[in-house]
């Protein structure tokens, strides 16, 4: 009951804030049409064997959801600055229920972003089997776990002032190195670096419809390690963050 009350409260707050929804859901959608609509007939983007609209549909789903997850941190940082987080800490609300509410609201925003981009993708000719859609979505949601932890970690670590650069810089870096904007070459430094980044595997979910299973053991290990480390960081930051800000 306790967890439910607080989670419901977080949902009410999120949907009452139209700016937050417009920026986190609308921005990737507009970007997708701007980039993909003029190139809708490119069947193999940069020789990757993946159509241009599909590449950017998943690329922007990755970028938009990743940014949304990390943006949870901005909301947390703001709540800390106003003193609300300290007030919550002196209620019987458990740490677990607090994190659950934050992660669930972030995931619902991510699902909305993904659903709208899929509709947009289909409108530009993207098509694949129901199984591929589902598997791709499942992998994206799993690959978002480290970013959910990163958002909470940053939210309890960084002040509101430096949150903008932290989110903008972090998201851009992960997006670029993960191949959101351009395919990463099959070899070389960027390729090797990409292999150990969760955003790379988030984007690799796009390779599904091109055949084969793109997530080998390396992908699962990378996602698991990043999730583990960032979750520990988030838990640590939350515990030590009891000071007046």
């Amino acid at each position, binding site marked *: *009951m*306790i967890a439910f*009350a*607080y989670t*419901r*409260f977080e949902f*009410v*707050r999120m949907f*009452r*804030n139209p700016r937050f929804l417009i920026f986190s859901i609308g921005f990737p959608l507009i970007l997708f049409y701007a980039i993909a609509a003029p190139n809708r007939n490119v069947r193999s983007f940069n020789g990757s064997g993946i159509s241009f609209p599909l590449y950017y549909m998943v690329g922007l789903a990755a970028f938009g959801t990743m940014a949304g997850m990390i943006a949870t941190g901005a909301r947390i940082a703001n*709540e800390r600055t*106003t*003193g*609300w987080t*300290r*007030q919550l*800490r*002196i*209620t*019987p*609300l*458990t740490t677990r229920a607090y994190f659950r509410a934050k992660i669930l609201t972030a995931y619902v925003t991510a699902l909305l972003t993904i659903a709208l981009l899929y509709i947009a993708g289909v409108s530009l000719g993207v098509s694949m089997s129901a199984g591929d859609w589902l598997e791709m979505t499942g992998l994206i949601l799993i690959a978002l776990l480290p970013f959910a932890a990163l958002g909470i970690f940053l939210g309890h670590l960084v002040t509101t002032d430096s949150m903008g650069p932290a989110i903008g810089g972090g998201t851009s870096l992960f997006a670029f190195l993960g191949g959101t904007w351009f395919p990463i070459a099959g070899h070389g430094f960027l390729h090797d670096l990409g292999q150990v980044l969760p955003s790379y595997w988030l984007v690799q979910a796009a390779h599904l419809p091109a055949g084969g299973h793109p997530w080998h053991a390396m992908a699962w290990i990378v996602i698991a390690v990043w999730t583990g480390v960032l979750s520990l960081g988030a838990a640590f930051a939350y515990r030590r963050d*009891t*000071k*007046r800000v």
Partner: protein
Amino acid sequence: MLADKSGSVETISSTPAEGIRIAGLTKSFKVSGGVVRAVRSIDVTIPPGQTLALLGPNGAGKSTTIDMMLGLSTPDAGSVSVLGRTPQEAVDAGLVSAMLQAGALIRDVTVRELIGMVAALYPRPMAVGDVLELVGIADLGQRRTQKLSGGQTQRVRLAVALVADPQLLILDEPTVAMDVEGRHGFWAAMRAFAARGRTIIFATHYLEEADDNADRIVLMAHGSIVADGAPTEIKARVGRRTIRATLPDVAPERLQELPGVAAVTRHGETVSLVCDDSDVAIRALLAAYPLAHHIEIAGADLEQAFLELTGDEDIPVGEAVA
């Protein structure tokens, strides 16, 4: 059988099971250029049902003490026991709630939604409607929290603490940002709450507020307790008002003889009378020296009183620089 019985009774009566016990509580902070010893080994025992004022100027260590009572901060040494539990256990069990110093409310929800959510976190909350009534904002239930005035915000923050219906209620400078009328309403609500046998601890730097509303005043300065007793007792020690007036050509010794005056200083044409009883003193002053003009009566200067009580030599590094 009998021995057993009396033994167990003694155990129960010798344990202040429901009170708050603070023993040797100590906390320091690192600041640039040194260490501020915010709380220096304080000891207080508060029986259940008491309304206690933590009185002191800014930087006395009141908020740091409160943070440790709520488990928001870990003591360097010493201990706090709240209703026989650790602070964190008491918070988790919903026995304690607090209105912390300053702080805005969270946005994008109505007052009723906010109080309702907090109520759902506690095992035995008050009804939301009753709480809104109690703090005098029954008409604001549907208002969004970002559209409240400063005084209304303070009342909603109080409602957030009260809805828990706690055994121990902690208030850190609760009436800051309230107007006079707001303060009256606030303390009326507090007295009603205290009448139900609940323990209340509030921090303030207003002597009058402590005097009017507390059963007991604990006076803090520079992290230490410098006095602990009934309000009348504390007021007698630090509650001296000062009368300033322009009054040339009267020797300080003559003014010293006036009833209610404790000490006199002169700066040019201005005299300052530190008074034990300013009401008596001002009447006597005007009767004896009708030419006195530009008269001001200033309330108790707590900072000054504390310095007299504690002595100057013991000021922490961080504050000495400032």
